[in-house]
């Protein structure tokens, strides 16, 4: 005798309890605090904020704790929370020229007003495991210079004065919001940039790398890469002027790309742009390279059929929350469709068998 499978509800409850226990791990080891994650795993926090599209280091740290360090799961928690938040309005565009830079490097000019600021970077560390960290994490205090008080101009602007690089026209259009309107193609550049900045770091990196290896190569120089904090201002209708409502840390990358010129444009340098929450240089540079590759049409370049040039391919597959959900859904039962396939294959095999026998006779 057989009784149909029952007990889904109890199984779910028990699975959740087990998950909570697993998350905590060995209880003889001190529990990790949200503040510890925020302060000591700040680059993970940055990634969760960037791809979760919500600047809140405390919530991002909480999400990382809850997700047992699975960053895509943490991003998902932030996204699901974010959609429920009311929208009071839009901020004014941030002015990255006003940034208090903790780091600023240019690969195109040895020096420029504002100087090169190496800042906190892994770039020149030797990747040797530091076994001392297993014992204690004490660090000597780093030397600091007085922070620069005046604004740091964009290096790209210096190329601009000679007309050597394409002009970026400022405009006041409100960009579309990817989280409030369905994605429809072709997408304008603001929408593409929005998709890239919240896209999966690994995916954007892979796409950018593919352009470097020759799939729509656009030879990028890092004109400038800067990280630091910028004020966020919002117009308050009742006041009639903008007030500062907070500060966010962002990384910005502007690339200078070769351009031979086209029928309509003289030879000049072109731009790729990356902007991302927190210190996230890999992602900012990747974003700028992919942005540039996606601009082939407006610059009158050839479509060489490279994946990074295909806006539909890039935008539809960059989001790791969509991707992971759909990928992992194949764990769900598919008894019904599988049964239908099973019947079909059996029937077709039987028919093929009969056909073979008839041919042999």
């Amino acid at each position, binding site marked *: 005798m057989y009784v*149909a499978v029952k007990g889904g*509800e109890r199984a779910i409850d028990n699975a959740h309890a087990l998950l909570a226990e697993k998350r905590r791990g060995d209880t003889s080891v001190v529990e990790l605090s949200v503040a510890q994650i925020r302060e000591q795993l700040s680059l993970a926090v940055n990634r969760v904020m960037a791809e979760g599209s919500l600047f809140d280091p405390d919530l991002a740290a909480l999400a990382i704790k809850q997700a047992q360090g699975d960053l895509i799961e943490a991003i998902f928690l932030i996204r*699901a929370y974010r959609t429920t938040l009311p929208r009071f309005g839009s901020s004014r565009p941030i002015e990255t020229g006003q940034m208090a830079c903790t780091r600023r490097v240019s690969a195109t000019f040895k020096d420029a007003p504002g100087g090169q600021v190496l800042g906190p970077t892994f770039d020149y560390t030797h990747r040797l495991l530091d076994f001392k960290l297993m014992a204690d994490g004490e660090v000597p205090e780093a030397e600091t210079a007085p922070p620069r008080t005046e604004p740091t101009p964009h290096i790209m602007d210096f190329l601009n004065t000679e007309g050597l690089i394409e002009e970026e026209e400022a405009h006041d259009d409100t960009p579309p919001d990817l989280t409030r309107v*369905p994605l429809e193609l072709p997408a304008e550049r603001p929408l593409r940039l929005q998709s890239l900045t919240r896209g999966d770091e690994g995916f954007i990196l892979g796409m950018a790398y593919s352009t470097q290896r020759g799939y729509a190569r656009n030879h990028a120089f890092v004109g400038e890469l800067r990280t630091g904090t910028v004020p966020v201002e919002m117009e308050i209708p009742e006041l009639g002027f903008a007030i500062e409502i907070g500060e966010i840390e962002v990384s910005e990358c502007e690339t200078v790309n070769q351009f031979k010129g086209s029928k309509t444009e003289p030879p000049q340098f072109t731009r790729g742009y990356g902007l991302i929450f927190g210190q996230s240089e890999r992602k900012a540079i990747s974003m700028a390279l992919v942005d540039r590759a996606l601009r082939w049409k407006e610059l009158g370049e050839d479509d060489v059929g490279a994946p990074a040039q295909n806006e539909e391919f890039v935008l539809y597959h960059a989001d790791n929350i969509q991707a992971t*959900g759909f990928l992992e*859904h194949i764990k769900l039962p598919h008894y*019904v469709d599988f049964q239908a396939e099973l*019947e079909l294959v059996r029937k077709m095999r039987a028919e093929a068998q009969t056909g073979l026998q008839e041919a042999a006779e």
Partner: protein
Amino acid sequence: MTDYNFAYLDEQTKRMIRRAILKGLAVPGYQVPFASREMPMPYGWGTGGVQLSAAVMTPDDTFKVIDQGSDDTTNAVSIRRFFERTAGVAVTEETQEATVIQTRHRIPETPLEAGQILVYQVPIPEPLRFLEPSEVETRKMHSLEEYGLMHVKLYEDISQHGAIATAYAYPVMVRDRYVMDPSPIPKFDNPKLHSPAIQLFGAGREQRIYAVPPFTKVVSLDFEDYPFEASKAEGACALCGADNSYLDEVIMDDAGHRMFVCSDSDFCTTRRARGHVGTEGVPS
């Protein structure tokens, strides 16, 4: 739970979804783009269906969720609980008692009635997707009613395999205009798409809603000499003896012995309660 609005979504979002539903009902089979929200469950796990259910649900509704025909499948349990928690609506396992039924991969065996809403979870809404990967192209094909590619595919199936090799998500023509993916239901269920109930289809990740209004003409694609056939496994349910319901195959032992049982758990339970007994069943 008061932290969230009734049925989780805020009223603005529900309004946006209802507009898409109305458009879908006005143009049966047409895929309406909508600004799908990030839900607290993963994409691919019924977010489109959940958003539709949330948008049509009222406090007086009675809600039923099935996955693979069963109310007790883990994801069906999870979605049912979500609405119990966020909307506090009555829930049921009985098809006839429900006013809103959310489903994945099946249409209930018990015929639906006027006044009921069947909400489908849809993974890939585009019936032409695996013939043409680009959304820009497939939208163009729909607007031009250019379905030649689909007919060629079905024809090639017949010439290669002697039959149309699609067992589920079998494409249909809705009201002589749009080719539509009925979601991955087995083709056994296709005839039930002509129904007195309202049928809504939601694809959250792909941001599409489409609909089949009551009594709309829905035809499974076929050829005159190779007519559509709503097939299922030969045999009867081992528990309730039904020979007209869609059957799941269950492996019984290490020797690979198998038996068939109804995929629709409510249908099977109801029959057994009425005294029907299959070869492996026990009288209740």
